[in-house]
């Protein structure tokens, strides 16, 4: 009904004006759906369906020759996963790494983000720059850069080296996640706390930390997820086997797809549990936090 009265609309090529009038007459959520459709389609095609397939393969019977027996149903892969002491020890180590790196990266990230927040001018730019710059170099190479650094520092490659290297990988993300929330918080609130008698560290703890809890949660979850799944740093800097290294071996050397899939499924389950726990615990110390 709008077309007739609109001179500019009729001048548009047909498909555009069709979309135009569609958009104009849609209710908010129809319009939203139209705009979000590509994104949703992408996530379905490239994320949801592949994971359904992964799940399906984890229930296929392993085969010693090919990758798996198509069309079979079996719990053998899960039995293998649950029966293997090695796998549990590998998972244990991965989670240990994840927890250590997460704790360090959140603590350091919080401190560094606060330093950036409080500084100004050139110092602020330099500090921010120092966070962004490592993101711009290749992770693999950054990790290697630690070898010549760690050894003279007396840190022979090993778990400590892996922790440092992995920290270097996730820290920039943690800092940015926390800083982006911190940057929107109101400095006056900190002043108010000091005005009411909170010392400087106390005011940060009482007022800044709870407010940036959404950022801390993101930092923690990202650090944790990526460290638990660490591949490059442990592979390069230690003898220890992590989940990622092990599953890669299952896939590419042993070619046992069902076991790899089952292990991945188990891993995802464990990780979801941990991430839920992170949300739960950290949310107690902060305000409301929504994913969206």
């Amino acid at each position, binding site marked *: 009904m709008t077309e007739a009265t609109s001179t500019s609309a009729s001048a548009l090529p047909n498909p555009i004006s069709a979309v135009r009038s569609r958009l104009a007459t849609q209710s908010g959520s129809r319009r939203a759906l139209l705009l979000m459709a590509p994104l949703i389609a992408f996530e379905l095609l490239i994320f949801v369906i592949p994971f359904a397939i992964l799940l399906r393969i984890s229930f296929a019977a392993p085969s010693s020759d090919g990758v798996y027996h198509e069309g079979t149903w079996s719990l053998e892969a899960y039995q293998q996963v649950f029966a293997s002491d090695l796998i549990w020890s590998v998972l244990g180590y991965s989670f240990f790494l994840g927890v250590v790196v997460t704790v360090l990266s959140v603590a350091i990230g919080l401190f560094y983000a606060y330093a950036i927040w409080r500084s100004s001018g050139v110092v602020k730019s330099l500090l921010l720059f120092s966070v962004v710059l490592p993101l711009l170099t290749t992770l693999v190479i950054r990790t290697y850069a630690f070898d010549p650094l760690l050894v003279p520092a007396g840190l022979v490659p090993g778990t400590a080296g892996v922790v440092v290297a992995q920290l270097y990988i996730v820290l920039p993300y943690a800092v940015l996640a926390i800083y982006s929330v911190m940057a929107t918080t109101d400095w006056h609130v900190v002043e*108010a*706390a000091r*005005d*009411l*008698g*909170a010392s400087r560290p106390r005011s940060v703890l009482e007022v800044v930390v*709870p407010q940036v809890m959404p950022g801390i949660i993101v930092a923690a979850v990202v650090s944790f997820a990526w460290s638990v799944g660490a591949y490059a740093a442990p592979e390069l800097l230690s003898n220890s086997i992590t989940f990622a290294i092990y599953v890669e071996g299952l896939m590419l050397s042993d070619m046992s797809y069902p076991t790899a899939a089952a292990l991945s499924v188990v891993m995802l389950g464990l990780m979801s549990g941990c991430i839920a726990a992170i949300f739960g615990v950290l949310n107690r110390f902060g305000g409301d936090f929504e994913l969206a």
Partner: protein
Amino acid sequence: MSDITLQGLEKRYGETTAVEDVSVEIDDGELLCLLGPSGSGKSTTLRMLAGLETPTEGAIRLDGEDVTDQPAYDRNTSTVFQDWALFPHKTVLENVAFGLKMRDVPTDERRERAQAMLERVQMGGYGDEDPTTLSGGQKQRVALARSLAVNPDVLLLDEPLSNLDKRLREDMQIELREIHDDLEETFVHVTHDQDEAFTLADRIGIMNEGELIQVGDPDEVYENPKNRFIEGFLGDTNFVDATVARTNGEAVYVETELGAELILPSDGAHGLESGDELTLSLRPEILSIDRGEPDAAATATADQRAVTDGSTTNAVAGTVANVIYRGSTVRYSVSIDGASVFAERTDASSGSLSAGDDVTLEWDGEDVLAFRADGSRVSLREP
């Protein structure tokens, strides 16, 4: 409660001087308003008082004790911020109890005291609310309660009412004043709203460009402004440019854009010479407006009048350009020889003038204030 002395207080940020040489003594239990336009250094002064900024120069004494270098958290002042700065992640009660928590008051006691303070500001039922969900006026009350809960020596308020709408702001002004009278604390209240300052203050300190220009009672600063800036800032007025024609012991005669020569009664020349540029302030409320041409007597040259009857009345003829009905008052904009002057009548006394009517404006020369070109006041009579 405490008395406060500021001595030669100065704050520079790089090139800009935010506050310059501010000295004032504030008495125990007094409510001082710092009034000034945006950027005049009010907040900076208050923040130095709170310990949130360190003065570049000068000293601050609370009850005689030099606290210039004490950080905010060691100083027993308490600030209510413009945007209230409530802790968004704490409940209302936790907000109010925060200062006590920092003073290591045991949990039970601090809950009790915070609750009592909430009751005091009529927010007793809101203790468990999330402060972000409150309305402006409620936030304001919580912020006040939070600051008062620590029993500060001095309460500092940085435009806490400026984010409220007019009606609420006026109510809160009265309420604040009542709380002050009740507590007998020393309050320093910053505002850029002259009505607010008049409503609240025991004394008003007027700031401009970092300087504290005048401190005094509300009527003193209104009736005896120290310079042209204050006269313009404290209320609506008509500024009229004038040139001194001549002076004698009894009056200063000036030429203005309003046509007729005007008379400013005085008890001496006060350093004025013929040819000096002045600015006169004619407040709308001193102007009486009446239909019709002025009397011949009134339009006679000021000189003649002064000689004939010693009158200090001035009168000019004009035309009503615009009538604005404002509820309780009516404002007339009057054209006089191309210049425009406005006068106000309360509704009650209003005849029914309308645009185009010829009118006479009359006023007593005694009520006119005069300022020199540099803005300073000419005192036409010895104090």
